[in-house]
């Protein structure tokens, strides 16, 4: 106990250094010729050393940053494609460096895997050391308690044997582990507490490993799918025709339960009154009918942003909404070849929306097969800018308008390549032109119809409904992840806030008394109390004071009456202790 306590308050403190005295040589100098085994040992020691762990931690923080600066494929693939188009030279290089997949990149994975290996390699040996330390007896009472950071000396009237017993009881009731030893001329109790500081530290680090495993299991066994559903439409989970679907390596579409989800109504409200917040969303609520599996009892629920459907490990969230104009197309023969809602995807906060209608099976007035495509924008509350272009000024459908351009030709549906529902492949198409030879821009309000030239047919804008986008996810291991994070927090708190303290109480017959003599009058005892903390510990002085005071109470003597405070001769041991002692003194005087 000769070395002064270091100021480290955190978990990875001297225990670690105690456990690795043998490393000192290996750390500083590499012996000239290392065999493969020794080299491995050397590498392992380096990896599990505190400095390496610290370095890896800093590296991890730095490595995480690019993921917030560059677009990420698994979050916004469109942005990545745009970036690659806009940066012709830098883009491919960044891509090769996996900058668009930072969190699954080789280098990011290498850092955190090394960090976790280092962590396990450090924590497991420490757990063994700790297991031994927990069972070990508190360390022997130092010869000169006066040299400890905290020291009190009191005289009591009780006999040494009684005083020693009382001291032991006091320490035990303060949840110290106590070891009483006989000493020449008296006895001493060595007490220690705060082992769970290290327990907490180990729990924290091992919980991080558990958290990593939970997260990994989620990405291996989980899946996610997105689907846009128009009001009145039903979407079935199993083999559902997803707009997009992604699953971990050990999962697939066949794992999705056969639920059915019908969108009964999509409720949307925007701020209408307050000018400064005009158009801000106020309510997104999807009324749905959910059937867990065929034949099961359907239940109705309102899905909002913060209230998903949760069932059987599957979570269905409302991830977006928009307008779906109801369109009817009657071809040149008078047949209705399309009728129904067509979702238009919102492009901005005022819901300027883009959409496409494909009519592959029409026949024109002359009896020829034609394919038609319409592409345009839906504006829920239209106004005209100064240059006459229409745009939306409010996301609610106060004054809706549909602006479309019609195309004929080859939609490109026949060659089998999958196509987006929301994009026209203009390669085989040409715009329908008016008498002046310019493409015709059709502008329709609900209820209006337009007749296309050349006997192509008639398009009717029947009305407006809404759609909702749903996000269907299964994330196994999320409860485990939560459990491990909470465990980690508890362990962390323990490792930071449980003080590790040692207190020694030495009892000797009072000077001049006849302590040892049987039958003689017990002339009282001298009690010395010393305290030592691992790391800085503002509460150590108070702890020692409490021990002294409780001891006096237990012996039935007036508390503090005969305490003579801090011993002289320890003023040179540091700065903080002076103040701590002053604090103790001031408490005693009150």
């Amino acid at each position, binding site marked *: 106990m000769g070395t002064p306590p270091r100021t480290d308050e955190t978990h990875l403190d001297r225990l670690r250094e105690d456990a690795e005295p043998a490393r000192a040589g290996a750390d500083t100098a590499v012996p000239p010729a290392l065999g493969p085994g020794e080299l491995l040992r050397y590498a392992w020691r380096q990896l599990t050393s505190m400095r390496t762990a610290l370095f890896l931690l800093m590296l991890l923080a730095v490595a995480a940053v690019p993921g917030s600066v560059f677009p990420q494929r698994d979050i916004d693939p469109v942005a990545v494609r745009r970036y690659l188009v806009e940066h012709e030279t830098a883009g491919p290089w960044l891509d090769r460096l996996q900058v668009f997949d930072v969190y699954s990149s080789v280098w990011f994975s290498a850092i955190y895997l090394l960090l976790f290996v280092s962590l396990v390699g450090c924590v497991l040996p420490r757990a063994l050391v700790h297991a031994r330390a927990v069972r070990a007896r508190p360390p022997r009472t130092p010869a000169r308690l006066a040299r400890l950071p905290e020291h009190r000396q009191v005289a009591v009237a009780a006999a040494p044997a009684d005083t020693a017993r009382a001291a032991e009881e006091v320490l035990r009731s303060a949840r110290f582990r106590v070891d009483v030893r006989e000493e020449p001329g008296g006895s001493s109790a060595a007490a220690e507490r705060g082992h769970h500081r290290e327990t907490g530290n180990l729990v924290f680090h091992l919980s991080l490993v558990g958290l990593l495993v939970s997260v990994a299991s989620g990405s291996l066994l989980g899946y996610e799918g997105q689907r846009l559903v128009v009001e009145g439409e039903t979407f079935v989970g199993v083999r559902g025709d997803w707009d997009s679907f992604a699953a971990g390596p050990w999962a697939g579409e066949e794992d999705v339960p056969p639920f059915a989800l019908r969108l009964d109504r999509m409720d949307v409200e925007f701020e209408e009154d307050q000018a400064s917040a005009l158009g801000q969303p106020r309510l997104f609520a999807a009324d749905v009918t959910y059937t867990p599996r065929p034949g099961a009892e359907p239940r109705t629920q309102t899905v909002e942003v913060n209230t998903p459907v949760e069932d059987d490990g599957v979570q269905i969230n409302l991830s977006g909404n928009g307008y779906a104009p109801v369109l009817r197309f009657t071809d040149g023969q008078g047949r209705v070849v399309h009728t129904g809602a067509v979702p238009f995807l919102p492009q901005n906060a005022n819901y300027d929306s883009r959409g496409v209608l494909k009519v592959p099976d029409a026949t024109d007035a002359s009896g020829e097969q034609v394919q038609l495509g319409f592409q345009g924008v839906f504006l829920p509350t239209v106004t005209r800018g100064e240059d006459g272009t229409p745009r939306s000024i409010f996301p609610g459908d106060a004054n809706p308008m549909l602006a479309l351009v019609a195309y004929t030709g080859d939609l490109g549906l026949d060659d089998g390549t999958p196509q987006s529902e929301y994009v026209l492949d203009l390669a085989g198409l040409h715009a329908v032109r008016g008498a002046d030879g310019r493409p015709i821009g059709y502008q329709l309000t609900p209820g209006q119809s337009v007749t296309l030239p050349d006997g192509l047919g008639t398009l009717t804008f029947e009305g407006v409904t809404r759609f909702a986008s749903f996000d269907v996810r299964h994330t196994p291991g999320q409860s485990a*992840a939560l459990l491990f994070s909470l465990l980690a927090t508890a362990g*962390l708190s323990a490792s930071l806030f449980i003080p590790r303290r040692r207190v020694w109480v030495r009892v000797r017959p009072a000077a001049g008394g006849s302590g040892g003599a049987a039958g003689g009058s017990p002339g009282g005892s001298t009690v010395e109390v010393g305290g030592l903390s691992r790391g800085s510990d*503002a509460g150590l002085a108070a702890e020692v004071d409490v021990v002294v005071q409780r001891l006096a109470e237990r012996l039935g003597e007036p508390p503090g009456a005969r305490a003579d405070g801090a011993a002289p001769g320890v003023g040179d041991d540091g700065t903080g202790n002076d*103040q701590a002692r002053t604090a103790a003194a001031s408490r005693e005087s009150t």
Partner: protein
Amino acid sequence: MSVDENLAGISNVLLYGAMTAYVVAMIAFALDLADGQRTAKGEAARRARLEREAAKAGGAVATLPPPAALARGRRRAAAVATSVLGVAFLLHLGSVVTRGFSVDRVPWGNMFEFAVTGCLVVTGVFLAALVHARRNGFAGGRDLRYLGTFVVGPVLLTLGLALRAWYVEAAELVPALDSYWLIIHVAVAFLASALFTIGFSTTVLQLVQDSRETRQREGRRTGVSFMAALPSAQELERTSARLHAVAFVLWTFTIIAGAIWAQKAWSRYWGWDAKEVWSFVIWVAYAAYLHARATRGWDGRRAAYLSMVGFTCLVANFTIVNIYFVGLHSYAGV
């Protein structure tokens, strides 16, 4: 539900009142520091004289008063500053509460409100620490009044910035924020940020004090003489470590609460959104700080630099990430 514009107006007036009181409190804290500098110089001169006399008389220096006697008597400026800070806190609290009532929700629905409420928490935590210290007779290195200027200063700066750059009228919440997790997640984030901020101020003082002590040992001019009235660098380091330890646990909880909310709202608990990335970077930076404190050769100044890196990330997370990075957290209307 609509917005009570009268109450929102009262909230703004109260905020201006609070800022005035903050200015007064900051000046008083600064005066206290200046006063402490004078006292410390006087005390040093007195000690030198006593030592000379003792040496002349050939006696030991044992009769010198212990360093604890250095503690100044009544610090009037500090007492005034603390009281005015209390007034500022009450006005500020009034402003935040009326803002909340004017829109019938928690007053942290956008960046302006977050900044204003965050500042309130910083002041609140600091005042609570002062009350705690006073109960202990300002003993045991707990007298944090020396920090006053360095806590009120950043608070004023942030409030000014919030009013100038981020002000938005009181309005109802957007649906994405309409969750009780807003209360839990953000409230804990406030506390953590407040403690990180006070911890940062302490760390800056620690580094200044450390340089001063080094120069003093080398017998050079120290320059920043007002620091003489402050605790030693070692004591400042311990205070800052305690603040950071509590803040780190709270930040951990902020991230967990955020993840639970994210699972509810976005159906995944972690998705490397810009805000999540930076919360993680902050966590790792402070974790590195805590580890550095326990690593030989990294404790002291180097660890302090790491905690400052953490704080820089914290500030960047609130400003740069909110304003310039596209992500799921950027609905706040700034």
